[in-house]
């Protein structure tokens, strides 16, 4: 990373006031990475929203989608963002103001923290934690608190019911997600996401001892884990068939009822930002992350091509997430819970057992 930044930062060092500052320190480098991530999140959310929500959904429904704002409607989400920003900031009269204002920020914060560990290249990661995936899963569950805050602070019994439903669903589906990931961690031998990418790059499958297939991504041996992770991700993102908390044609309009204007925009950005992040994590854990066979492990070129490769894989994973969303009706809350507890968790436990045995024996 320093090799990449040195020419750019050296140019900055020429300017008189900044000349005395050493910009290759950890602080400056991290600040730059954080700035890039803060730019990537809305950009990723917008791209995901445009391609999948506006265009893919429309074409699946035999229609064109937005076409007027910008060529083929590319600026539609920007226009929507501006529209939300200029709305009146409404507080319900009996709402708890501070909690009401803080709830979307908590959700958004949990989304932003997810991006800390996602590697987009050998050095293009904000912080390569040793407990990478553990950190990511732990942080993603903070959004449950934000949802509960939103429902409670709204002083609206329907919002509270919606928030409780949402919290129950999110907590129930955390477990299959975590357990599905354990299989990958056993196979990779490390919890660090960069380490998992490297492990997939070095992973060789021997077919009955006859020949070896090199560089197999974990989606193949861990196909059960991949499906479990995708289903759990669908539920974590509150997408159909698990979108009972945000169902529009139900009695309750969900925990976001009382939010308008830019606070609603935060929730929206949180939803699509999480979709982007979870798709990135799925791509890293199961599809090989930023690596395709042929790339080198430490060249600078990998730092530039890596994000593009990861972006492509994110699009693929997101395609499946949204494809399922637009096709299926939603499950009722109790059916959804019984599916999590009675079906997904046992399967994931069996998956872990089989993976552990296979890892030791083979």
């Amino acid at each position: 990373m320093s090799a990449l930044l040195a020419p750019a930062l050296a140019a900055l060092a020429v300017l008189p006031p900044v000349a005395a500052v050493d910009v290759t320190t950890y602080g400056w480098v991290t600040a730059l990475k954080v700035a890039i991530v803060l730019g990537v999140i809305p950009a990723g959310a917008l791209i995901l929203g445009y391609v999948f929500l506006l265009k893919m959904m429309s074409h699946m429904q035999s229609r064109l989608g937005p076409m007027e704002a910008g060529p083929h409607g590319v600026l539609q989400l920007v226009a929507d963002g501006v529209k939300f920003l200029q709305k009146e900031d409404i507080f319900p009269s009996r709402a708890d103001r501070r909690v009401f204002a803080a709830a979307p920020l908590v959700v958004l914060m949990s989304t932003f923290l997810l991006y800390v560990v996602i590697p987009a290249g050998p050095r293009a990661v904000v912080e390569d934690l040793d407990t990478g995936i553990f950190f990511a899963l732990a942080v993603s569950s903070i959004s449950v608190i934000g949802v509960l805050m939103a429902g409670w602070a709204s002083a609206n019994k329907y919002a509270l019911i919606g928030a409780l439903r949402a919290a129950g669903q999110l907590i129930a589906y955390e477990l299959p997600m975590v357990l599905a990931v354990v299989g990958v961690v056993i196979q990779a031998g490390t919890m660090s996401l960069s380490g998992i990418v490297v492990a997939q790059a070095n992973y060789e499958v021997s077919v009955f001892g006859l020949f070896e297939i090199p560089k197999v991504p974990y989606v193949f041996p861990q196909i059960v884990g991949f499906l479990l992770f995708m289903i759990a991700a669908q539920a974590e993102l509150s997408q159909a068939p698990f979108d009972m908390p945000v169902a529009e044609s139900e009695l309750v309009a969900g925990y976001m009822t009382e939010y308008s204007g830019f606070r609603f925009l935060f929730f929206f950005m949180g939803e699509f930002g999480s979709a982007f992040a979870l798709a990135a994590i799925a791509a890293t854990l199961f599809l090989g992350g930023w690596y395709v066979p042929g790339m080198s492990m430490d060249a600078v070129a990998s730092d530039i091509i890596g994000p593009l490769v990861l972006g492509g894989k994110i699009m693929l994973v997101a395609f499946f997430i949204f494809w399922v969303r637009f096709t299926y009706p939603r499950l009722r809350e109790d059916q959804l819970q019984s599916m999590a507890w009675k079906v997904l968790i046992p399967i994931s436990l069996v998956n872990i057992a089989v993976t552990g045995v296979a890892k030791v024996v083979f």
Partner: protein
Amino acid sequence: MPRPEVPGVIKGLGVTFRTMLKPAVTVQYPHVKETPAPRARGVIALLEENCTVCMLCARECPDWCIYIEGHNDKAPPRREGGKPRTINVLDRFDIDYGLCMYCGICVEVCPFDALFWSPEYEYSELRIADLLHDKQRLGQWMDTVPEPPAYESGAQVKPKKYASPAAARAKNAS
């Protein structure tokens, strides 16, 4: 062994996927406009010279949205040395499209073929009062009235003599 059933959840995904690959059916109005059928009830046109102020259309209209005023006048006799004829002159013929139900009873009931349907539909206004079309505007719609389409085989309808606007115009010219 019979082929295993593809689970319904997979078939459903197939349906949406295939639809995504086909072109969308949206017609991007106002850049592209679809033409309605020739019989489509878009707007009512008035052929003023055929109107004899009989008031049948105003009476039959279920919404009472046609406003007609006329007066008697003397016209020169048909033949030399005859009595001057009394004719009805149309002073005012308004249709309020804010009330009109587009049922077509007025067009059907007119015995003198003065009213026609036209498939034109782009006449929305910013003020409701502008939806009252007067005699002149109704006359201008006559240019958009299509010839009635031919009938399906097996039909034994005697086509109305002056159903076509061209014929109706010619009727009075003679």
